């Protein structure tokens, strides 16, 4: 009995600590506010108001059914853990003739529970319980005046936990203070830059 346990013990020691790991330092997902022509009202109006009024204050990022995009999953004796940490986000104005974001005082991205219904004043994160987690923030006072691109600093949120397990979507709400670009209508690409790390440990 003892002799039969020795090889098993040796084998167990051998595989203990074994792993497989995938690291991608830069995974950038980008999505426009409008599907086609510029659609967000401008005219230097209140940015938060125009975003809410048009229903463009939320965007949906579909990650698809990726097996790795789960916090923890077991495959045989291996346990796979994945993190998708937000490094930073960007909002790039387009077209360039639309003006700039120099009148934007602050911009915040939050993980929202649902898409906006387009009703003026609809804010999915208002009164949400639990409160919507903040993903990235831009503040003119500390980050400087933006031109046609706003860079939002990420706070290290792990997006895997925020992706809907059923739809595999991440809904991002945009909150802003200050004024919209000067052009009548404008559009912007919202990009989030993430670091992916997925590791399978045995056991």
């Amino acid at each position: 009995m003892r002799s039969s346990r020795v090889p098993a013990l040796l084998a167990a020691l051998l595989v203990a600590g074994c792993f497989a790991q995938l690291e991608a330092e830069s995974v950038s997902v980008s999505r426009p506010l409008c599907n086609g022509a510029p659609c967000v009202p401008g005219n230097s109006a209140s940015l938060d108001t125009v975003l809410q009024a048009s229903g463009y204050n939320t965007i949906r990022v579909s990650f698809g059914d990726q097996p790795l995009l789960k916090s923890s999953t077991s495959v045989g004796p291996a346990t796979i853990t994945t993190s998708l940490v937000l490094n930073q986000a960007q909002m790039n104005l387009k077209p360039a003739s639309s003006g700039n974001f120099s009148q934007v005082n602050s911009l915040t991205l939050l993980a929202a529970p649902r898409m906006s219904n387009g009703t003026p004043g609809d804010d999915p994160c208002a009164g949400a319980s639990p409160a919507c987690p903040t993903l990235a923030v831009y503040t003119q006072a500390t980050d400087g005046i933006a031109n046609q691109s706003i860079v939002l600093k990420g706070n290290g949120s792990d997006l895997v936990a925020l992706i809907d397990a059923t739809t595999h979507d991440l809904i991002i709400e945009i909150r802003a203070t200050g004024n919209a670009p000067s052009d009548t209508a404008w559009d912007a690409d919202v990009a989030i830059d993430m670091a992916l790390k997925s590791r399978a440990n045995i056991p």
Partner: protein
Amino acid sequence: MRLRKLFAIVVTGLCFSAGAMAQTDAGVPSEPAASTKSTAKSPRKKKAKSSKKTARKSRKKKKGASSASKAQAAEPYTGTDDGEPPQLAHQAPAPGIRGKPLNVAAHATDANGVFGPVLYVRKKGMSSGDYVQLKMISSKIVPGDYAVDVPAALTNVEALEYYIEAWDMAGNGPSRAGSAEQPLFVSVEEEKRVAFPSAPTNVTIKPRGAPPAITHAALTQAIRGKPVEINARLVGDTGVQDAAVMFRHVGEKDYKALPMGNIGADDYTATIPAAMTTSDVEYYVEAFDRFGNGPARSGSPNVPYVMKLTDAGPPPVASAAAPVSVHKRVLDDESDTTIIGFGIDAGAPGGAGLTLLVRPLWWLRLNAGAAYNVGGFGFRGGITLSPGQWAITPTLNLDAGRYLSGDVNKFVTVTDPNAQALLSRTTYTFATAQIGLEFGSQRWFSFYLRGGLTYVMSTLSGTDLTALANGNIGAGTTVTMGDAKFSALAPCASLGFNIFVY
């Protein structure tokens, strides 16, 4: 009155000094042929002759001088005088141990024969009149080697100062190592003792016994690059234990221990590996009995046997015609010099390999060659450490390499063209550490099984990953990915064989 006192003190001091000088001179040993030398000798010799006469007078007063010395001193030298003093070489001994005899050795040669040499030793810091003279004993094994033990009674000091003098039989000399005025120095240290737990105290009474008697035909010649078998007959009433050949290359300070194995009856043997027979070797044999009595020695650390190595010629030559029965202890000495070979192996997940093997040291093998894992080709290299050369030998193997191409689509079935593109360019770097067992002769053919761990690193193309991600992500969303790094630590196993051909 005061002047008279001062004069008396000075005269007394001079008398004491003269007495001390006379005592020092009395220590100079006899020079046997001095009385027969012609009066036309050089001033140097005359001076020596004068001092020798004084020494001879003093020696007459001394009792206990060796009879051999007296006989030598009485006999006139009848050979041809080369007029040259002997050549004296001396290597300072290692620090002595307080209360233990200290062995001092020297090498002296002269065409007329060597008289002496004599070791003069004193406690460090004492006056020149305090030297104790010790006649050095010639080695019966190595001509020209002399040694003497400084008695334990003289080593209860912090350091000793000494010098060595030697004459030839015609009276030429002395040749010196050090001098009375500028002696050589050797420190004497406390014996290092192992600290034992204070309680309980076990007192072991050593049973009676005696070190074994060693009969050994010293080897004086061997072939360079070949293993040398050293045999000895060890006979002891209380058994034999820790028999070993202590050897070193000429010029080295420390000896290496090579345990001797019993090959039947009282015969013991050990083989100096071929890798160690690169230059002349000094050695001695030592053994204890089972009660720790000993060591008995054939040769000694200070007067070892010297084995000259030649590039070709006869097999090891023993200095005495008393060969001990020879038995093979190693598997096959014949092919010990094989250093180049080939290896073929296969395993998972490492794939197969064809490697060139080179063995620069008997315990170290280097390998380098091609690797193949069905998906593609690569290269690899590594080292194998083997602690012995037995029929079944454990090994430690360390390898590293890189696959330059690889199509993993041969192993997995995917339909996504982007995934296929990604998997068709799978290159990776790996490192493995394996332990194994080798069966057979490591010098000719061996088969092996190994198991261990492998570490794999691979970089996945950002372009391929971007294409793959965009094909699977929702509409309206664009993904851009940089290069990704894949790494894994996994178990591995392999089997293969080695053939050494040269």
